[in-house]
């Protein structure tokens, strides 16, 4: 009788009870934010939480793992996380340059150009034995890159030791690192590949990790034809562990589209205009499914349909309250006026360039502007492949042409190893209020081996962008300087106690390149020259000199 009643209660429960039943929760959210320059930033976030799960302890890698049974969590990703005992993992694939000065701070802070991968992994067991060599951090980091490259069809596998760095301060874990016995230290690995092109072949596997793929729910809006036509687009995978909740996987897609391009001097947007699709049905397994729209504060506008709730200038649309098909529309009463001065919403403005036209040396110049009325502390992180090396003795800090060595609080530099390891420069700077600090440092360019040149060598090498991370202690003062439209992202950053990171665009460096078009001719010419020198020396050594009588 009791079981019968229990079943009856089950029948009364809303159809979503299974979402909690299985110990996995999936929720999706789309944030749409009109930008000051008339463009529209949108951010999809798909979060799957595996309740009660913990990352695998690499000390136990030689022990058979328990079976993996998932309902909502992507199995392909779970296999990788368990196999290589990854505690926290972040992968971003972005295309284009995020314009902080015009667009403000992004919802997803990691907008480095190209592919970036960083992870925290604990040291595995087995110090010397060959069988356990695969359990060491570096071996697992290599295998992880290869596995993710296969999963996302991206050239992450080429993020090899020559691009791997372990900076100390600019990146901190989003979640927690499990407190395993003291012998198990977590190691951090970071690598970036700015020349990676992000396209449909990366989006397709990304969508396959979602429980509803792109067939229902918000993910249906992820239309590759529109997304890869946007001014900026990027996807991200973030895996972290929350001690009281479990393992969380966040899949994000961020894009900046331009409604003005559609014609008519209007920044009015709708889902159909942005994505050429509408939400025609809800994802049946999503615990929550929301669209959040930042509403204009100063102008007149109309939004259709009405948001379920408006908090802090942000209208929330819960998909469970809406009727399908759902096409959100936001219209302004006034036509759009192009602003003459880009409104600076970002906490800092960073410029970075490579100077000098010589093939073997040059200079790196970075200028960081702090528009705020308070001084801030930042970590300036530069990870350079070994083809470029820094002359630390030439490091110069100046404000308005005046040298200010006192602004450099601390510096750590890991020198590059030619043909082996990338260089890491972490400089702790304090930026005075309302000033522009210029950092100038001499760089040398290495000579590459014939086989080390990339395809299309004349194009040059992409140097990864620098990262400027605002130290959390100082970021408490930041919110006053930022516009209210951007507040959400800022608050979110603070909630996670994450340093705000600002990425500079990639640079192109042009090392000395041989003439690849005619290698055989080069060989012949070189050989002829060597043979000529050899012949001259040899003849000089063995020649017989005789005095000839000249006829009178």
């Amino acid at each position: 009788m009791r079981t019968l009643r229990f079943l009856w209660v089950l029948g009364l429960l809303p159809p979503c009870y299974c979402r909690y039943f299985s110990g996995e929760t999936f929720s999706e959210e789309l944030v749409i934010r009109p930008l000051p320059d008339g463009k529209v930033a949108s951010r999809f976030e798909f979060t799957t939480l595996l309740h009660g799960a913990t990352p695998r302890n690499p000390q136990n890698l030689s022990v058979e793992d328990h079976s993996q049974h998932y309902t909502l969590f992507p199995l392909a990703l779970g296999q990788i996380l368990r196999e290589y005992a990854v505690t926290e993992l972040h992968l971003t694939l972005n295309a284009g340059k995020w314009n902080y000065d015009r667009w403000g701070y992004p919802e997803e802070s990691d907008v480095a150009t190209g592919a970036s991968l960083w992870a925290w992994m604990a040291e595995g067991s087995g110090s010397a034995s060959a069988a356990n060599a695969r359990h060491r951090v570096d071996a697992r980091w290599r295998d992880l890159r290869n596995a993710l490259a296969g999963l996302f069809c991206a050239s992450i596998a080429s993020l090899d030791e020559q691009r791997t760095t372990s900076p100390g301060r600019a990146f901190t874990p989003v979640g927690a690192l499990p407190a395993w016995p003291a012998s198990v230290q977590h190691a951090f690995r970071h690598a970036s590949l700015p020349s990676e092109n992000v396209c449909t072949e990366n989006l397709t596997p990304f969508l396959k990790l979602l429980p509803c793929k792109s067939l229902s729910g918000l993910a249906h809006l992820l239309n590759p034809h529109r997304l890869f036509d946007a001014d900026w687009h990027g996807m991200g995978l973030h895996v972290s562990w929350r001690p009281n909740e479990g393992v969380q996987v966040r899949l994000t897609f961020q894009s900046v589209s331009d409604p003005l391009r559609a014609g008519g001097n209007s920044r009015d947007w709708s889902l159909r205009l942005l994505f050429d699709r509408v939400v025609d049905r809800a994802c049946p397994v999503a615990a929550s499914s929301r669209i959040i729209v930042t509403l204009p504060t100063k102008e007149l506008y109309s939004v259709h349909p009405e948001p379920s709730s408006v908090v802090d200038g942000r209208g929330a649309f819960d998909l469970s309250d809406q009727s399908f098909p759902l096409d959100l529309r936001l219209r302004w009463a006034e036509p759009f006026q192009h602003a003459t001065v880009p409104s600076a919403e970002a906490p800092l403005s960073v410029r970075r360039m490579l100077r000098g036209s010589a093939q073997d040396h040059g200079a790196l110049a970075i200028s960081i502007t702090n528009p705020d009325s308070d001084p801030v502390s930042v970590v300036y992180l530069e990870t350079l492949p070994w083809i470029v090396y820094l002359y630390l003795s030439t490091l110069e800090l100046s404000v308005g042409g005046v040298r200010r060595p006192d602004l450099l609080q601390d510096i750590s530099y890991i020198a590059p190893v030619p043909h082996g390891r990338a260089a890491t420069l972490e400089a702790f700077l304090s930026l005075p209020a309302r000033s522009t600090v210029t950092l100038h440092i001499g760089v040398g360019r290495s000579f590459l081996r014939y086989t080390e040149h990339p395809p299309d060598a004349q194009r040059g090498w992409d140097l990864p962008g620098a990262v400027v991370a605002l130290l959390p202690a100082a970021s408490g003062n930041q919110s006053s300087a930022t516009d209210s439209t951007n507040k959400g992202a800022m608050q979110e950053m603070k909630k996670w106690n994450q340093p705000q990171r600002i990425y500079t665009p990639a640079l192109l460096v042009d090392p000395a390149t041989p003439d690849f078009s005619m290698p055989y001719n080069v060989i012949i010419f070189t050989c002829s020259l060597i043979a000529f020198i050899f012949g001259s020396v040899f003849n000089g050594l063995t020649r017989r000199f005789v005095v000839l009588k000249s006829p009178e």
Partner: protein
Amino acid sequence: MPPHVHVHPDGTSLRDPSRLFYQSDSIRRLIIASYWLFIIAAIPLWWHITSIERLSLPTARVHAQAANHLRFPVQIQLENVQDSSISTSLQKLLDDRIHKSHGLDVQVRQQSDPTNPSDSYVIRAAEGVPSANERSLTYPVRPATLPNLADLLTLLLAPPIDAHRVAQYSPRYRLAFTLLNEDAAAGGAISGWDISGAISRHLSPILTALSVLHNFTIESQVQFHAPLAFSPTPIQDGSYGLTQEDLTVFVNSAEWSLSSSVSNDPVLHFIVFVPSASRRPLKILDSNGLPSTSNAFLLPQWGGMVIYNPPTQDTNSNTNANAPLPPSALHSLFSTFATQLLSLLGVPNLPGDLQTTTDALTGWQLDALLRRRTSENARGAYDTLQSIVKLVDQIENMPVGQDVRGDVLDSLSALEEMYTPSPSSPSSTPPSLTTTLHHSSTALTLASRAFFSPKMLALLYFPAEHKYAVYSPLFASATIPLAAAAIREVVAWRKGRREREGAGGGQ
């Protein structure tokens, strides 16, 4: 006055170039000789750094393996049989029936003998329905039933197997269970299943029994959108049908994310397909186009599929509700999966009319499987080894490194171990089937690893022609003056000697 001291017309004598120290014949010859000496001394080094490492492979030992044939001794004991002629006639009947190629040495004995190995088979004579237990068979043994008994024993000891269906041997398999909803958003989908419980109830006994052969990694996932690549055909009674042609293209690998990226272990897929609410019930049609009673099918060497049509809901309940898989359905699904798994792993079925008392596999089945896998592996290892030897023989540029050679040698010794047990093991008893299987599997794994070693491809794409094309411009132009100088000097030396001899003869 010496003939070669020149005096300038004005009387001052210049230095004679031939008296400079490096102009003497001996020094010049020394210089030329040292060049040649250097070249000759450098040749071994050049040879060493440009030659491809080709360690010799044990070709003769590989070919010698062809003479080896696996023999499996099989002891059968008859219990409760008084008539001694029965065992001899059964022996004769079995010898006729069991083909030589199975490699079975069947020996039938009358009475239980304490010296017999413990893994011998026992036939108990008793009236009633024949039934098989662990390694015993209860059968009404009478002279009249002997041909039937011999037929039954042949089926038990050397069962026929559909070789196309059985997955290739691997020490470890990945069992991937997938619950696929064709379209969960259309409603009535299956939102989850008690997979761990079902596995422990239905599969664990089988997996434990098979653990002597394979290890298993189990994983499962649920998908909520798994579209088909084709549309099922509607049939008369409002249901939908899958024709035999549809079944061949049923698995939509492009849309169903089934692949695994972390290991190379072979995967056996077990899929529950829940058709979309608008296409229910979905049935499999037989070759006549009529709905078949079965809703499961097997994809050889790949896995098994079951189509699950959720029962039609009552009108008062919410038809759009997604619910977990009911336990009764789970039970029937996993019974099907268990059958499919056995069939994919090549476990022979018991002959139709035989009863069994155990739930798990009988020793008869397991031993037949072990014997079959062992001979398969041994043959595979031998074929692979022979291919390596042949390939290395044919392609002279192919490098053979220490690891390839080591793998080949280890594989060979595992094979040899299998045929002739090492002296350390007690020689009176033949090695157990599991040991033999272990050796055969090691031999196969090592042979395949050697065959697919990426180091064997290293220099395949840098042919000798390229080498000469790079060398000749440098070496030809350097050696020609060297050779010319050497020849000139030899000629001059001979001439000088002849002149000296001539001068000596003249005196």
